[in-house]
């Protein structure tokens, strides 16, 4: 699939925004039960404003994915069936309730409503991330994405970005939560590493459809694409197959692993062992995570193979996977361009 830069920007900004708010509000929430000492008002305000600005930038960036930005409001109409509609509703609602929460918190109007909107924003934020992930995870025609790992990794990415930035805030304001958040960042990055590895390993075991299945022909027929009916590229060959991306994949995949997981994990371990938990290290951790995640999301798109590519001979080549169990295995190469 062709990676849309606008959506990658949305993932990163919305991810940091929602992740940061989740942790900020959670600490406030604990004070309701007399746990912890909460956060200074200034910190909640600054963190809230960062979240608000980021989700604003994210929404603005995501609008560039749309052909008609001014009609974007219409995306709320199919909430009942479409995950994209749900995402639009939840992301919009998240920004709105966050604004109200900050307002109530700043003017200390009423603690009940303050926490009510805090909890609401917290839940809607998570639902927004979940809906975004479900857009990809529910697509049956891109087998690489069609798994719960997509959702798990996606939500974990939000927590990775959020906890890393919160650690920086904690260090900056000298809050007593630095140790906890260093640990949490490590935990979420390590979990993400696991999910991403599983996501990649799973791809080797996918039962991919073949051109024979697409054309409803017997499994043991050799078949070859002779002509796709268009001289140059068309929407189907550019949107669903990104040639340049596929060539770069072997470079970007290791880079994304390196920057998203290896570098942050090593830096955090170093900080732990040597006791040098400082702003420099954690800014590096966050930036590495941010750049790594951008490359990771790009890679995620390019890794996805849409089944419509079968008709163009652009689906990954492989031998017939015999499902009926009695036909001989035959290596068939479906290729068009060589």
């Amino acid at each position: 699939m062709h990676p849309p830069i606008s959506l990658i920007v949305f993932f990163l900004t919305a991810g940091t925004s929602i992740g940061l708010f989740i942790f900020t509000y959670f600490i406030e929430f604990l004070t309701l039960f007399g746990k912890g000492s909460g956060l200074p008002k200034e910190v909640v305000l600054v963190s809230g404003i960062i979240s608000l600005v980021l989700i604003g930038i994210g929404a603005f960036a995501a609008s560039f994915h749309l052909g008609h930005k001014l009609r974007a409001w219409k995306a709320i109409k199919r909430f009942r069936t479409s995950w994209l509609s749900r995402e639009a509703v939840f992301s919009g609602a998240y920004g709105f309730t966050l604004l109200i929460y900050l307002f109530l918190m700043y003017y200390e109007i009423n603690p009940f409503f303050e926490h009510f909107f805090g909890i609401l924003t917290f839940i809607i934020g998570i639902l927004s991330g979940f809906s975004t992930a479900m857009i990809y995870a529910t697509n049956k025609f891109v087998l690489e994405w069609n798994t719960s790992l997509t959702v798990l990794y996606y939500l974990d990415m939000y927590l990775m970005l959020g906890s890393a930035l919160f650690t920086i805030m904690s260090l900056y304001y000298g809050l007593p939560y630095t140790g906890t958040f260093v640990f949490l960042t490590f935990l979420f990055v390590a979990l993400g590493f696991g999910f991403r590895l599983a996501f990649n390993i799973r791809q080797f075991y996918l039962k991919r459809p073949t051109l024979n299945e697409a054309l409803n022909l017997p499994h043991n027929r050799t078949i070859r694409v002779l002509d796709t009916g268009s001289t140059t590229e068309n929407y189907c060959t550019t949107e669903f197959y990104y040639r340049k991306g596929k060539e770069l994949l072997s470079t970007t995949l290791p880079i994304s692993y390196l920057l998203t997981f290896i570098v942050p994990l090593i830096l955090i371990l170093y900080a732990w062992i040597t006791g040098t938990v400082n702003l420099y290290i954690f800014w590096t951790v966050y930036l590495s995570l941010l750049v790594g995640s951008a490359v990771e999301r790009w890679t995620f798109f390019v890794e996805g193979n849409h089944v419509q590519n079968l008709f163009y001979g652009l689906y990954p080549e492989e031998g017939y996977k015999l499902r009926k169990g009695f036909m001989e295995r035959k290596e068939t190469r479906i290729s068009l361009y060589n």
Partner: protein
Amino acid sequence: MAQYALVIDLNTCVGCHACATNCKEWNTQAAFGPLSDYDPYGRHPSGVWYNRIMSYEIGEFPNTQVFHLPKSCLHCQDAPCVPVCPTGASYKREQDGIVLVNYDDCIGCKLCSWSCPYGCREYDEADKVMKKCTLCIDRVYDETLPPEHRKPACVLTCPARARFFGDIEDPESEVFKAIEERNGFVLFPDMGTNPGNHYLARTETKINLEEFEKHILKPDNPLFLEVMKRHHVSNKSAETTVEEVG
């Protein structure tokens, strides 16, 4: 419930692209037009088409056969492209099962095209909306046209008469009978889309020799000699073997 659809006979389709060309022609100027072209006179012409023809070769050399597959939206009965649309711009008509896009509501998010396993939706970069075959709804319901012209443009133009249009749920229709009699099949049956458009499989052409002898192979037929000659030549060529060179 009615389900209008196309039935395409792969046995007679010669892959001439007339249907695709006439589809483009009609839909560029009619109610759903235009269908944008990019760089039409340049080095890399491309554009939006509702119908594309692919050619495949089946079998191993020297026993190969080529067939052509015209592919336009299959108007799936369980269209996966419809529920994912966030605006409701993509919808399936209840009265005839035609899947359409309302260009005034489409925000151009492309999600519907990601949810079509057949690659039958194309995004128009100029109009910034998603487009797809309309089953020529602007022809089939147009009462100003003579009844025999109330058919899709691609069906009317096909020189091999390989395309049929009708209600595949109506046992009286031409398409229903064609599917029944000739075992019409659909693309990607595993995908759970339940396509409306059906294809009629290729069959090997057999000459009914009895008929042939009765009517043509009579010495008083003025064409007798010519037929014999041709028959002889074609028999020869069938035996042609391929020799390895070098």
